[in-house]
């Protein structure tokens, strides 16, 4: 019981931080609440015995990513918009509840510990059993660097409004052409009939 209470503390913090991250209007605060989620999850990792991951999560998830977010928000501007959600909240709630309850029905019966023979160290698991994944991760990191360059890319002049209008106009034209073609084909088929 004591163990469960001990675990409940970081879990509750994580959930609370997560809810706050969604509720708050300010982007900066949202990013900081995310760091909170990250930190409490790192604690959970540690308690579950995953020490290495806990450290990585704390430094990367709570540290690096938060810094990046703050940086990006600084570039993009922390605008606060009229946030009337597009999707009705009730619909979202219902869907989430249905999906999560069903998932819980699947997962909870399996919540038992299975004894397994001794397994190798994390590093050897990583390099020997999952060598391909490591290569993929290297590629991923490369992509991430490119993405970062995207954030830092030189500021270009924003697209002029006329250009946006032009795109819309082109779209309209395409649609009209499509309808014109369909009416044409119908006309020609009717002509075939009369001939």
């Amino acid at each position, binding site marked *: 019981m004591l163990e469960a209470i001990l675990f409940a503390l970081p879990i509750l913090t994580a959930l609370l931080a997560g809810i706050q991250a969604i509720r708050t209007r300010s982007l900066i605060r949202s990013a900081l609440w995310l760091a909170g989620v990250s930190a409490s999850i790192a604690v959970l990792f540690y308690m579950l015995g995953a020490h290495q991951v806990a450290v990585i999560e704390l430094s990367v998830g709570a540290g690096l990513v938060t810094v990046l977010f703050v940086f990006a928000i600084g570039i993009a501007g922390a605008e606060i918009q009229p946030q009337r959600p597009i999707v009705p909240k009730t619909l979202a709630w219902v869907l989430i509840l249905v999906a999560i309850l069903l998932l819980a029905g699947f997962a909870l019966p399996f919540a038992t510990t299975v004894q397994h023979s001794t397994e190798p160290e*994390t590093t050897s698991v990583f390099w020997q059993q999952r060598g391909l994944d490591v290569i993929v991760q290297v590629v991923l990191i490369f992509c991430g660097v490119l993405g970062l360059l995207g954030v830092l890319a030189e500021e270009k002049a924003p697209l002029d409004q006329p250009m946006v209008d032009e795109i819309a106009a082109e779209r309209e034209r395409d649609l009209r052409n499509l309808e014109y073609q369909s009416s044409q084909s119908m006309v020609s088929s009717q002509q075939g009939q009369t001939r």
Partner: protein
Amino acid sequence: MNPTTLKLCLMAVLSLVGIGLYGLMICRNLIKMVIVLQILVKAAALGLILAGQMSSQINLGQSLGITVIVADTIVAVVGMALAVQVQRRLGTLDVDALSSLRG
């Protein structure tokens, strides 16, 4: 670890997934969506570690968790890059402005 704790942790994973999905449906700001996505992925990483703990293969779980964290960080970086570019081009972060896929 006793079963109650395991159940508790599982429920935590599921609730975090729920919070993440709800946030994705509700949020209109692109950067905020990336943030919420992070919550969702953290839930997934927690699930992996938990599975490792449950099958007493914690090191396998750890290695998978590291993979997830790497992927997740890159998703965040690329997502933010996209958001910044969108902001520069369209002048807003509202997803409503990004509806050129409308049928």
